[in-house]
């Protein structure tokens, strides 16, 4: 009785099947139970079927290459001849070789220019803009956001011309009578990294500002009014109303700019190729150079994996601390 029931199609048979499912401890019973006994709205196994296509794409194009990179990072490989086992050698070199550590130090400096400065400037401008009405705000917003729309290569080429020894920046300085400040910005061992960094600030500030402005619009007016009635000045108002109100936007802005700072490749490639000397080499550029130019695939992979880990850790920290998410 209990076996033939499942094939039945008439309502009576179904009821019988249900009844039998409650009774006999068969595989079929458990299978049926999964679909019939759950409370409405409880997750069902069929959900996995829905995400399968996305998971497949994710797996093939992201997880699989990531795993492969991790595997390559454990080998010495020139990209052509048979690879040899390296174990943790490549990672050990990352820690001990100053030439491999330097790019990470440079990336840390760039974090300041790419993430900290744009967020700070964005907040400052937002605080000012929310207090005063400005004519043509949409226009300014568009202009400030423009660097985000431009391809990084275009940005790099344009800034390379601006920062050249006889470029726009030095010309302007000379016209203003500050010829003593002129220098070969991208060719100076001390100034090349800050110069590249300020390009990053230029690019990312617009993004931060637009994010914060839209966030500020959602802060209820009443909060500002209440603060003013309590006698708060512009500074107090910023710290008690605007800043907490923008918490979520700051987290998003920080995440985006952090990632942009750490995976910075195109700008370095176009402007300095890591020079002068190795003053502006960054991890992402080093990965490319080692993998495609000097044939050190293992070392490049180890660097890539480490970079991935650093980005992952930093974004986790941002979500926990700034966004205040516990899980």
């Amino acid at each position, binding site marked *: 009785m209990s076996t033939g029931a499942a094939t039945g199609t008439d309502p009576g048979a179904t009821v019988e099947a249900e009844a039998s499912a409650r009774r006999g401890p068969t595989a079929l019973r458990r299978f049926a139970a999964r679909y019939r006994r759950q409370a409405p709205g409880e997750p069902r196994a069929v959900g996995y079927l829905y995400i399968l296509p996305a998971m497949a794409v994710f797996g093939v194009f992201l997880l699989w290459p990531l795993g492969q990179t991790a595997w390559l990072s454990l080998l010495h490989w020139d990209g052509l*001849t*048979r690879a040899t086992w390296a174990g943790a050698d490549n990672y050990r070199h990352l820690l001990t070789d100053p030439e491999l550590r330097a790019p990470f130090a440079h990336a840390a400096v760039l974090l300041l220019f790419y993430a900290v400065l744009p967020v700070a400037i964005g907040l400052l401008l937002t605080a000012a803009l929310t207090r005063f009405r400005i004519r043509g705000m949409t226009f300014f917003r568009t202009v400030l956001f423009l660097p985000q729309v431009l391809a990084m290569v275009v940005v790099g080429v344009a800034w390379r011309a601006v920062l050249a020894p006889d470029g726009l920046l030095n010309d302007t300085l000379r016209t203003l009578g500050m010829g003593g400040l002129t220098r070969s910005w991208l060719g100076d061992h001390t100034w090349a990294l800050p110069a590249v960094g300020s390009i990053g600030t230029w690019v990312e500030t617009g993004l931060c500002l637009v994010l914060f402005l839209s966030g500020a619009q959602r802060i209820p007016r009443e909060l500002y009014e209440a603060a003013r009635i309590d006698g708060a000045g512009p500074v107090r108002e910023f710290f008690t109303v605007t800043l907490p109100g923008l918490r979520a936007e700051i987290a998003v802005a920080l995440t985006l700019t952090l990632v942009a700072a750490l995976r910075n490749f195109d700008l370095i490639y176009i402007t300095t190729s890591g020079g002068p000397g190795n003053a502006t080499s960054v991890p992402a550029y080093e990965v490319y150079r080692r993998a495609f*130019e000097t044939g050190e695939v293992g070392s490049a992979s180890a660097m890539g994996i480490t970079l991935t880990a650093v980005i992952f850790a930093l974004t986790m920290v941002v979500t926990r601390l700034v966004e205040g998410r516990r899980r």
Partner: protein
Amino acid sequence: MKAHRHHKRGRSCIVLGALLLAAACVPGTDGSGAAGSQGAAATAVPDPGKAGKVTLTVWDQQTRGGANAQVERLNKEFEKKYPNVTVKRVARSFNDLKKTLKLALSGDNPPDVVQANQGYSDMVAFARAGMLTPLDSYAGLYEWNTRFPQTLLNLNRVSADGKRFGTGRLYGISQEGEYIGVYYNKKVLRKAGVEPPKTWQDLTGALPKLKKAGQLPVQFGNLDKYPAIHTFGVLQGQAAGSAEPVRETVFGRGKGFDTDATREAARTLADWAKKGYFPKGANGKGYDDAAKQFADGKGAFLITGTWQLADLRKPMGDDLGFMPPPPAAGQQPVTTGGEGLPWSITSKSDHPEVAAAYLDFLTDAHASKVMTEEGVLPVVPGEAARELDPDTAGGQMFAGWQKLNAADGLVPYLDYTTPTFYDTLSADLQGVLSGDLDPDGLAERMQKEYAKFRAQQRAENEDAK
């Protein structure tokens, strides 16, 4: 309970991933796949006409003006000569080719003919992995050994064990010659009352005079890092007095870089930067920008390769002069130079004989004529080159090439020395120019890099025994 089940599933995913990873075998080849290592030892000059229907896939990087035109012309003529052969050309810029060639060669269906750069990171690596066919038997049949100067053929050689560069089996032949020379602007020199230099002393003596006359003596931009290697190579050649010592070192047989010539060259380079013979902040100026400004009349001299000639000749016309670096009085000219990227046959090619005939066609006397007509400097300039007006920059370039070859004055590019020499040297020279690295420091660092690689090679040889 539910959460627990999900955890379990997550773990099984990780286990599955780990299994898949472990299944992925060690990448790369051990070189044993090198098909018939001697290119099936051809014994007679192949006749592509009898090869049946053949499609020859060719990857080259001759994308610039004249270089592109001559390949197009020669391809068409080759197809006309052998109607059964179709040449399928894939042209990419030097950088693009360099980056994609490795993947293409390690695939199952590589092109038949490729242009693979000389040096350890390209040609030596490919030869070692057994991806290129040695051309020695064809070199005998087609008499390439007598067609090209030995010093130039050596640049395309890799030792049989695939470890050393500049000796052993022939893996490619090159079409065009190139060398670093001195471009000068006749108008700027005239304005400063300076004659085009005939000796090295003339050149160095002209620099302060030009500076005093308010002209920029030497146009130079080193933001792209490599141009300083060329300038340094010229200075080093001058200081050494002959090509031999540095060339031997580049091939790994010499005394190394800890020499007086290295120090003197570094001193001169730093000195020129300090005295303002180079533009201020040259480390921050692009190579193309510098060339453009030179063409616009900013700068009396520009030290760079023959490849710039066509681009400079167009805007400057008769004001442009060109010569190999003028030698010290009573000496022979020396400079950095060599030949264009060699054309090689891949070991998986189905038609190595047709490919060999194609290589021969690209480099014979007729090809030299076509190249000359398109403004490209052939390795072996023929009749057409001799007919050029010796007073034009083009004529000077050909005459200089003949002179350099006759005097055995070519030093290979310094970056062939080790796989990472380009990176370390170009970075260090930026330091020399900015004054952050003194000449002793440079000599020491170059020597260290050289010695490290030699030691590594020796260790590998020990392992092999």
